[in-house]
């Protein structure tokens, strides 16, 4: 359980995080989504007590992180997998961390096994690939078998096999009842791993909630095929939905799939197909963060809905 209340962090003239409040619950993977420079890393640094909030507060399991003694037993976090000293061996790196939190040496070998690095345990970290570094970083977060886990852009640098592995790992950790908090600027990645989302842009909270809710609330194109398309179209327009013809199907906007299904059933209309268009998370993301992208190259994307 991670809880932020009015979290604000200013670096000189830059307001990195602005009055951010959220709650991250155990037992699910919560995605932390936002464009580059939105304040995701800053928020995570504040959670870990590395940066002092300018205003507001953030607690882990009800207490500020920095008040903890031996915190790795409660919280494991990976902010930057390349932030390790390259001259040290993988097992030495983990052992030094373990010692600082009174974690037994056997656990070092367990977590190396868990991330598949047993074979290179005695190799210098400097010889590792990006993906191996990422696995080492994940091993470090698991050292204390913590109930809260936090990862900043964890799929960066991983090969496809590693990405699949990490998705399964996150889901399994959440299924074990842990709080899993994962940041990403890739909406497609979040669609596959996260159940809940916190979306921020320019330090502001833009949206939070279950991923299905967020996608149905915004974008929400639904492709419908029906032998009674004409009648259905009339009903949909009555419901203030926008309808356009797409070959033999109709594309509905402004009403989600369950609502369309119920509407059809209520009027005895047969549906052959009722398909929410899945690219919608990306659209949601653009719609939600449109005004808050920090660095933009192309023309403005549509402004976000109210």
């Amino acid at each position, binding site marked *: 359980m991670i809880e932020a209340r009015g979290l604000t962090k200013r670096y000189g003239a830059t307001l990195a995080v602005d009055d951010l409040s959220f709650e991250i619950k155990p037992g699910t993977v919560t995605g932390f989504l936002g464009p580059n420079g939105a304040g995701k890393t800053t928020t995570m640094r504040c959670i*870990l007590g*590395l*940066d002092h909030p300018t205003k507001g507060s953030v607690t882990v399991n009800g207490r500020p992180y920095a008040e903890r003694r031996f915190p790795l037993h409660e919280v494991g976090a990976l902010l930057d997998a*390349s932030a390790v000293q390259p001259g040290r061996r993988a097992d030495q790196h983990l052992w030094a961390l373990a010692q600082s939190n*009174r974690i037994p040496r056997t656990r070092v070998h367990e977590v190396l096994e868990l991330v598949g690095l047993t074979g290179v345990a005695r190799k210098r970290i400097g010889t590792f690939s990006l993906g191996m570094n990422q696995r080492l970083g994940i091993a470090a977060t698991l050292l204390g078998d913590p109930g809260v886990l936090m990862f900043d852009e964890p799929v960066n640098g991983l090969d496809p096999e590693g990405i699949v592995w990490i998705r399964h790992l996150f889901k399994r950790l959440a299924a074990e009842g*842990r709080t899993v908090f994962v940041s990403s600027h890739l909406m497609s990645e979040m669609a596959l791993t996260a159940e809940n989302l916190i979306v921020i842009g320019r330090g502001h909270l833009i949206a939070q909630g279950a991923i299905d809710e967020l996608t149905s609330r915004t974008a929400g194109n639904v492709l419908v095929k029906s032998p009674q398309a004409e009648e259905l179209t009339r009903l949909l327009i009555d419901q203030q939905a926008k309808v356009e013809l797409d070959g033999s199907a109709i594309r509905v906007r402004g009403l989600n799939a369950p609502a369309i299904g119920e509407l059809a059933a209520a009027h005895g209309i047969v549906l052959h197909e009722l398909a929410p268009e899945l690219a919608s998370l990306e659209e949601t993301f653009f719609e939600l963060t449109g005004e808050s992208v920090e660095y933009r190259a192309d023309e403005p994307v549509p402004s976000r809905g109210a």
Partner: protein
Amino acid sequence: MATTTTTPTAEAPATPPEPTGKPTGSLWRAVLASEWTKLRTVRSTVWTLFATFVVTIGIGSLIALARTSRWDNLSLHDKLTFDPTSFSLRGVFLAQLAIGVLGVLIVSSEYSSGMIRTTFAAVPQRRVVLYSKAIVFAIVAYVTTAIACLAAFLIGQAIFAGTRLPTGAVLGVSLSSPGALRSVLLAAFYLTVVGIIGLALGSLLRRTAGAIATLFGIVFVLPILTSALPSPWDTDVGKYLPSGAGVASFTVKHTSDLLHPGAGFLVLVGYVLFALWIAGFALTRRDA
């Protein structure tokens, strides 16, 4: 490589796992053990300690050889005031460079790699981290430099043993002669102090280059600048500098421009405490 391919279940049990075996015990012991592991598992430790060792003994021996080979050219006054103990320990002036670099690197290398954030996430009690680093470093540095200084002293005295004073006595002294053992131990202490000042600077400045430059400014450049002051300010200020207090602590034959050895020792202790205090103060107030 994927060792964990168990299919995750969608439904999650509501209760998070209890923190297993919440550890108790000494935070200091844990962090000291961790910092000891860190120190001994990077190569820079071995290289800088090796350099400190070689330079202390090598330069000390060279200076002793040079001095004895030109002994007859010295004036009678120079011969009678010659301090064989401090001359055998002159390698310290170059060795402080190597040990200072190690002190700086212990903290600054964690900043340059980003490791420091992992460290502080594992131990939010940042002062405990800093002081544990200092303690572990001090022990390792003192043991190394004490052995090096003892060796330099013994080799130096063996070289001086072949030369005689105008009084007919042998130039070299033994470890049991007045002030000799104290000088050896305090020369090592001075080297350790320079290293700890380096460690504090590494923590304050976070950049290796900047911290090393500042440390060398303090131990090499400041004495040169103060010597340009008009008398008596040059010696009055100079003897309180870390380098001046260091020389005083490992000199046997005293001159008026040096502090008493005991006072020199206390000045060094003062520098260490001040450096660590200010580094610890800044560390807890700044973002990591």
